[in-house]
């Protein structure tokens, strides 16, 4: 049956659930594109035949193939676009540097898109207000208190806080830090908010 490969691509994304990025299915895309090519060629020759020899009974078949082509196109773009949305969400979650495991699942063009998106977002944030701009990927949750208790989940090295003090983030050490400094680290999984 036509279009089955394309549906399979969509299903693959749906099965992964929200926010997860499966490996880029280059093979699947290629198969759909090949199917489209074949359909298009068949249609071309049938159209010629229908025109020159007046074989009107071919027209329904041509129409059917055309619908399959459109459907394939739609499924592929939906697949690609949905992946872009997931990649976009990653920028907000992990910051501008993605973990290698995730980069591994992206194709070269997706990386290119991500870099471009990163750039656009950075330009936008820099243009806000004063010289430094405003990082709107911070302050995601309403602030409840100034300082929070955090525990280090992995070695992160030295970390400078606002007043210039440098602290060493070592695995399993516990710190009392300004919330606005550690939000990103918490999302990256370096720190854990200790709720007492």
């Amino acid at each position, binding site marked *: 049956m036509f279009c089955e490969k394309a549906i399979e691509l969509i299903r693959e994304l749906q099965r992964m659930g929200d926010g997860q990025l499966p490996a880029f299915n280059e093979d699947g*895309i290629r198969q759909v*594109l090949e199917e489209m090519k074949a359909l*298009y060629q068949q249609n071309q020759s049938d159209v010629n035949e229908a025109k020159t020899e007046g074989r009107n009974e071919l027209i329904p078949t041509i129409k059917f193939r055309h619908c399959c082509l*459109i459907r394939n196109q739609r499924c592929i773009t939906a697949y690609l676009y949905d992946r872009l949305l997931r990649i*976009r969400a990653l920028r907000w979650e992990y910051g501008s540097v993605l973990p290698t495991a995730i980069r591994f699942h992206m194709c070269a063009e997706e990386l290119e898109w991500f870099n471009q998106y990163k750039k656009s977002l950075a330009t936008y944030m820099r243009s806000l207000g004063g010289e430094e701009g405003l990082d709107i990927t911070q302050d995601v949750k309403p602030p409840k208190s*100034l300082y929070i208790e955090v525990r280090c989940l992995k070695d992160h090295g030295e970390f400078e806080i606002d007043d210039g003090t440098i602290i060493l983030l070592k695995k399993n050490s516990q710190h009392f830090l300004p919330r606005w400094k550690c939000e990103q680290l918490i999302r990256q999984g370096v720190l854990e908010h200790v709720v007492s």
Partner: protein
Amino acid sequence: MSDAFSEASDLSADDSQDVMTPAELIAKLEEAWLNEKFSPELLESKSEIVECVMEQLTHMEENLQRVRKGDVKASVHRMEIDRIRFVLSSYLRSRLQKIEKFFPHVLEKEKSRAVGDPSFLSPQEFAFAKEYLANTETYLKAVALKHMPPNLQTVDMLKAVPEPCLDSFVFLRVKERQENILVEPEMDEQREYVIDLEEGSQHLIRYRAIAPLVASGAVQLI
């Protein structure tokens, strides 16, 4: 919140040139923030509020530098700054999310806007939206579209990307009394569907029916 803020602004010297007091400014920001958060479509851009608030934040940060260490007042102000920055970021974030979600429609609306009408996008947001569109189109083209048959190499973004759903329901509080609001503006038979909105009352209604009132500031989404 606004109390502590105006207190904080006592520290800053030159806010007298503003027509609005800082408390009013923050109230305006909160209003814009809630409206933006709950409306299904992108609202008019309020760049002047954003700029004023940014300026205030910078002032407050500067003043905080002068306060000596360990002062209790400092941490109160610090907290205040954090809260304002959260509201501001959240406001800009929800705008950006809508721009990304509906980018072809947002750009279309901006293009068809008459000269002199208020803009829906700030210049920066407009630049961002254009880049986002170009980037996404280039990407789709490079990966798949250019390998497709010649008649299928373009995608109409306006058709492909969903439009904001204006028929979704929103909660609102009335700030100025309104009369004769049509609940079903697109129906011919109107008489039975006219309501009055009393000041201070709260309603659950379709967004489409009250969209102009949100824009004029007569109602507040909650």
